[in-house]
């Protein structure tokens, strides 16, 4: 195993790889766009209009970011509450992903608000009739709690042992609070859409929307943990036993079945089968979302296919993309009228930059603190050409059989 060049500056490890150069470039590009956006408003950076006042930053960065960060709370729930201790190996990684997710979500939200110098208003001017008010408070509190929870890992290395002891002592309280708030605001993100009943395409609107968002954040959580561990495996060579990952994702799979049943129940009670097979853009998008994001993943995860690594990874990616697709549908497709909106370059640059920033911080932290498998990670060098050749060979061999 070859490792990448690693610089030690003031005792911190900085690994330099070509990919990270590109990511840093993207972050710098984003920084420039952000300055432009904050100084000139929306006109040069986004394609937002009165018809689609919420664009990519809300639908992708915020809605999907929060959903993806669901891995933190769903793993914490299983590990520290329901005592699935064998899943504990993924807990720290999931916690970190959640924290980064939330910080990036807050950054995305900040960029999306018009009078950004007023961001603190809801702390004093309480619009308690709004679901967004609940989301705002929960996200703020939860990010604080995640930071303190994560502080436990930081204090292992920095600061005094004494502080670490205190953090460990209040940890159970933090875990309980840290499980109440994400559940509240994952559901309230769905609740945001309740008021849009007259604006949304009927297939996506339901009184159960808060519950749908909560459930989907739970199963995207475990799927995301699977995706993340597989990515961390290629980069850091750290592997988590396959059967643990299968069991973990199957917990999500069960929730997914309930989700599907509730969706079908909704179709009956609100008499919407007509819309499903209408053949319009919306109904096709809905069918695609249900088929590829829910039905096929369920079939994969509860069949022997899940025992193979590719099977599990297919499930995980389909689920992750399926939930992202659902969030985009709720924001765009369901309110589609003339379809004038497509994200502008600026919106893409900022979204890419935020993700790159997240990846960079993730890499720095796992290399300097005990996170993946409770030890410090070192990125291994992979010979990409060789890897791709091997992959193609493996696929060809399988087909021959």
């Amino acid at each position, binding site marked *: 195993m070859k490792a990448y060049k690693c610089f030690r500056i003031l005792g911190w490890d900085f690994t330099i790889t070509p990919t990270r150069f590109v990511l840093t470039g993207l972050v710098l590009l984003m920084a420039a766009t952000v300055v432009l956006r904050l*100084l*000139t*408003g*929306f*006109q040069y950076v986004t394609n*937002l*209009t*009165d*018809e689609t*006042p*919420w664009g990519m930053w809300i639908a992708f960065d915020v809605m999907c970011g929060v959903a993806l960060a669901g891995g933190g709370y769903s793993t914490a729930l299983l590990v*520290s*509450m*329901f*005592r699935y201790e064998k899943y504990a190996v993924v807990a720290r990684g999931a916690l970190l992903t959640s924290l980064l997710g939330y910080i990036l979500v807050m950054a995305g939200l900040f960029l*999306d*608000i*018009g*009078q*950004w*110098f*007023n*961001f603190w*208003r*809801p702390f004093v*001017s*309480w*619009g*308690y*009739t*709004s*679901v*967004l*008010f*609940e989301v*705002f408070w929960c996200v703020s509190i939860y990010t604080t709690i995640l930071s303190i929870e994560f502080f436990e890992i930081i204090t292992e290395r920095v600061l005094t042992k004494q502080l670490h002891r205190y953090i460990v002592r209040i940890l*159970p309280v933090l*875990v*309980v*609070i840290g*499980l*109440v708030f994400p*559940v*509240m605001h994952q559901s*309230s993100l769905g*609740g*945001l859409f*309740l*008021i*849009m*009943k*007259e*604006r949304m395409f009927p297939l996506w609107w339901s*009184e159960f929307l*808060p519950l749908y968002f909560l459930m989907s954040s739970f199963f995207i959580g475990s799927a995301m943990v699977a995706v993340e561990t597989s990515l961390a495996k290629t980069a850091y060579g750290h592997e988590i036993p396959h059967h643990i990952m299968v069991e973990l994702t199957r917990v999500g799979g069960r929730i997914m079945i309930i989700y599907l049943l509730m969706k079908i129940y909704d179709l009956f009670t609100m008499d919407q089968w007509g819309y499903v097979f209408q053949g319009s853009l919306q109904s096709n998008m809905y069918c695609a979302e249900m088929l590829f994001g829910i039905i096929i993943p369920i079939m994969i995860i509860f069949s022997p296919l899940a025992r193979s690594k590719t099977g599990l990874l297919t499930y995980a990616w389909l689920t992750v993309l399926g939930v992202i697709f659902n969030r985009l549908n709720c924001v765009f497709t369901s*309110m589609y009228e003339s379809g004038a909106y497509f994200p502008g370059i600026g919106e893409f640059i900022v979204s890419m930059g935020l993700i790159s920033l997240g990846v960079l911080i993730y890499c720095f932290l796992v290399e300097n603190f005990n996170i993946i498998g409770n030890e410090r990670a070192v990125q291994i060098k992979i010979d990409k050409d060789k890897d791709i050749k091997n992959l193609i060979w493996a696929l060809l061999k399988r087909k021959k059989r």
Partner: protein
Amino acid sequence: MAVLVDITKCIGCESCSVACKLYNELDFKSKPRNGADELDDNRWTVIQQHTTRKERIRFVKKQCLHCKEPACASACFSKAIQKDEKTGAVVYYPDLCVGCRYCLVACPYAIPKYQWDKQFPQVAKCQMCESRLEHGDAPACVSACPTGALTSGSRDELLAKAHQIIASDSRYVNHIYGEHEVGGAEWLYISDVPFEELGFKQVSDTPVTQYTKNYLSKVPGMAAAWALFLAGLTYYNHRCDKNKKSDDDKK
């Protein structure tokens, strides 16, 4: 304060939209952002021309309806939109606005618009000339209307008047748009052509704020129950560990 719009009397002269721009100091030169007869941040009211199925032309004044249960005000998380108790106007306070645009997506009629080309954009919508209402005057557009298509007064009186007009003249459609739509509005419309033909959105009578209210009223209880359950579970787990430890010690 409410306004009754009699669509049969409107000749589409646009006096109302000019009065609106003058009174609210909106930009006369701005290019229409969403089409010439659509609302935008400099057009708080517009006149839309419709040709009915019987080839007749009707003019419909469009502006904020000032709902009785305004979705925009309920959606605002910093109370930047509030319904004035005294006048009934749904008023926007830019100082409190964060700029999240939830009001734009929450409004069932898609009325609020945004200043997309400003450095620090604000929401733009009809304020029902709230400062005029406070002094007992009618909104600028109503005062400017030369044909009597717009009348202002208390909502109950205007409703009674509208019912009387409909009952006495068989040409009118037996429906007052704004009486029950999403919980009712301060702006009421009567017409001799079915409202569907005039571009009026068909909405249910349930206020959309009802769904949010139902949901939010359940949240504190659910959250408390969930927190209690988790705390109990933590305690239970803690006891299990303790018992296990003492058992191990005995061995």
